[in-house]
């Protein structure tokens, strides 16, 4: 079985430009074109967030699509499920807007769609090979990798640092 990919955040790279948010909104619009999307009603919603940790850290936060997803277990209407690819999705037709998922999500990445009165979240851009936020990130703070690939890179960096730190 091939390793599924996740959206990882390289925490040292985000410059807080919020480009990922725009790309996310555009991808979740009807037209999928910025210049048309900004006048669509209801306004397309972004599902990625950029938080500020004073004094100088910027952190993109988005649905982790947890393996043991608290939101999915908590959903009383059975609206939240997992696709074959491992993506947690909310079925709008079933969502009753009780916001239980919001209460249990440890990342705070579930939004409330005022016009449709439904919950919404990252859907990993089912029409794209690479999610829009990742594709748009100018500093590659967001990457779409397997756990193995991402960890491998981190191990490499750590290994290089260990060696150089000892002056070897």
């Amino acid at each position, binding site marked *: 079985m091939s390793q599924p990919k996740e959206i990882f955040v390289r925490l040292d790279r985000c410059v807080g*430009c*919020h*480009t990922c*948010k*725009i*790309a996310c*909104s*555009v991808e979740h619009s009807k037209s999928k074109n*910025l*210049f048309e*999307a*900004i*006048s669509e009603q209801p*306004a*397309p*919603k*972004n599902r990625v967030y950029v938080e500020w940790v004073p004094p100088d850290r910027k952190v993109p936060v988005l649905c982790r699509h947890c393996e043991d997803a608290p939101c999915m277990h908590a959903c009383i209407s059975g609206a939240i499920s997992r696709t074959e690819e491992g993506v947690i999705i909310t079925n709008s037709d079933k969502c009753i807007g009780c916001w239980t998922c919001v209460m249990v999500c440890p990342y705070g990445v579930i939004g409330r769609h005022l016009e449709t009165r439904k919950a919404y979240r990252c859907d990993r851009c089912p029409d794209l090979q690479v999610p829009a936020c990742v*594709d*748009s990130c*100018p500093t590659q703070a967001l990457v779409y990798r397997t756990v193995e690939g991402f960890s491998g890179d981190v191990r490499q960096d750590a290994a290089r640092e260990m060696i150089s730190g000892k002056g070897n």
Partner: protein
Amino acid sequence: MSDGKENSKKSTDPAVQEMISKAKDMDVTTVWDRYDAMTPQCGFGETGLCCRHCLQGPCRINPFGDEPKTGICGASADVMVARGIDRAIAAGTAAHSGHARHLAHAMLKMAEGKTRDYMVKDVEKLKAVAARLNIPVEGRKENDIALDVAKAALADFHEKDTPVLWAATVVTPGRVKVLTDLGLVPKGIDHEVSEIMHRTLYGVDADAVNLLLGGLRCGVADLAGCYMGTDLADILFGTPKPVVTEANMGVIKAGAVNIAVHGHNPVLSDLIVSVARDMEKEAKAAGASGINLVGICCTGNEVMMRHGIPACTHSVSQEMAIMTGALDAMVVDYQCIMPSLVNVAECMGTTVVTTMDICKISGATHVDFSEEAASEKAREVIGIAIKNFSNRAKRPVDIPDVKTPVVAGFSVEAIVAALSRLDAKDPLKPLIDNIKAGNIRGVCLFAGCNNVKVPQDRNFTVIARKLLKKNVLVVATGCGAGALMRHGFMNPANVDELCGDGLKAVLTAIGEANNLGGPLPPVLHMGSCVDNSRAVALCVAVANYLGVDTDKLPVVASAAEAVSEKAVSIGAYAVAAGLPTHVGVMLPVLGSPLVTQVLTEKVKDLTGGYFIVDLDPDSSADKLLDAIDARRAGLGLS
């Protein structure tokens, strides 16, 4: 070629496509590669919702309406967008008028005897300009008149008792009233640029409409800068007359010392043309067949119009000229010079020579040009090219076998002269009669650049093709002219294929009356980007003849592939002059519905002009035709 489809998305010019493949093979990074690496681009910048005008910022407003809805200072999306577009207009105005000021200084130095390399080449134009400015000409020496004109030009930059003369004296009386009533008459060219910088500062103008009016006034100052640039260049270097030449990379000659002049100002390039003639011997001594000058961008247009120097390529494909491996030097002045040229030049063995104090590029060879030592500096530059030829002579070159005949050089004076062969007493009458009769449905001016976001030349050629078939008289400047000339639109032989019957008959009648043995070219080349002033002059002449203002004429403009902030300021003055003005790439204004609405609709109630923003060339052509028809109906013409 497997790259064929890929390359046609980048440029529709076969010579450029050939060089893109070569760059790929040689692993040379081009503008298209850099664009690819830059996408997707920042949506805040694209919509005009990014503000860096103070140190509390940067601020950005979410165009999807979520928080934040204002900048830290409280500036709304409307204010942010209006400030941004104002600064673009100011930058464009500063550039055009900087070019004009440079010429004014050259003229002043000439008149004061501080340089021997410049002279009054067109006395008639000098007198005409002086008369327009109320400077006495009767019984005075040329030099004294030139001194007064140069001083009047320099005086137009600052605030003084009179408004900017190069604006107030070049439009119709009706337009003077419209601009005066709206408070849009510039007080000084520099004053307007400076005032835009002031009012867009942290905590000054926060009324989007007021900001936009300020931008329009600066746009009128840009018209002054452009008009002055044209006037002074014509006086010093001659007013263009029709000239037969050719365009595209096939004009480069493998065995010659090839020098490309690139940039905007004829103040150096015109000298290079005359000095090159004297240095043929040196070139031959180095084993070359001679010196071959070719033009790129508007410097290219300047020397093409006045000396028939062929055009090599334009705008977005400037790097591709160097990719041929056959350019010995690319001599640049300022504006639209991509810094990347130096990297491509290093790969290909070309020397990039910068010449202006305000435009140096790391890695280029700098020759400090001055008007006092103009010929000497021109010799030095050509010497660098000859030396480079000796070094490159044995390396292989790839010169695309692509070039097309061009008839260029249609200044207003040249157009009137050609028309006077039909009616010596009343030269504009044949033009007006044909407009009235519908043989000429209207006029469209193509201006501006090639934008990497558009397959090079596509918008220009698609729109022009459609308009010509519908009998619209097409004139072109800048790299818009470059695009159309490289695709054969300035070749009289293509009139049959390109033009509708009415237009064909008019172009043929004028051509035959002038003993050209055929028609005028389908598209008339009016010059460089400052020479958009020539199009304004033509409009004003026609409007005055008809006794109407410029906003009533069936005349439209299109910057179909705009890049530079100069295109934004030109657009601003076209709208201030009352023209429907198409832009074929997105302006960074959509973040403000108010600003978008003012620029595309509301401004019509003020100046009669407005922006048409449409990225699709087919529907753009339809909109331009509709605008022309609406104007015709307004004049009671069918």
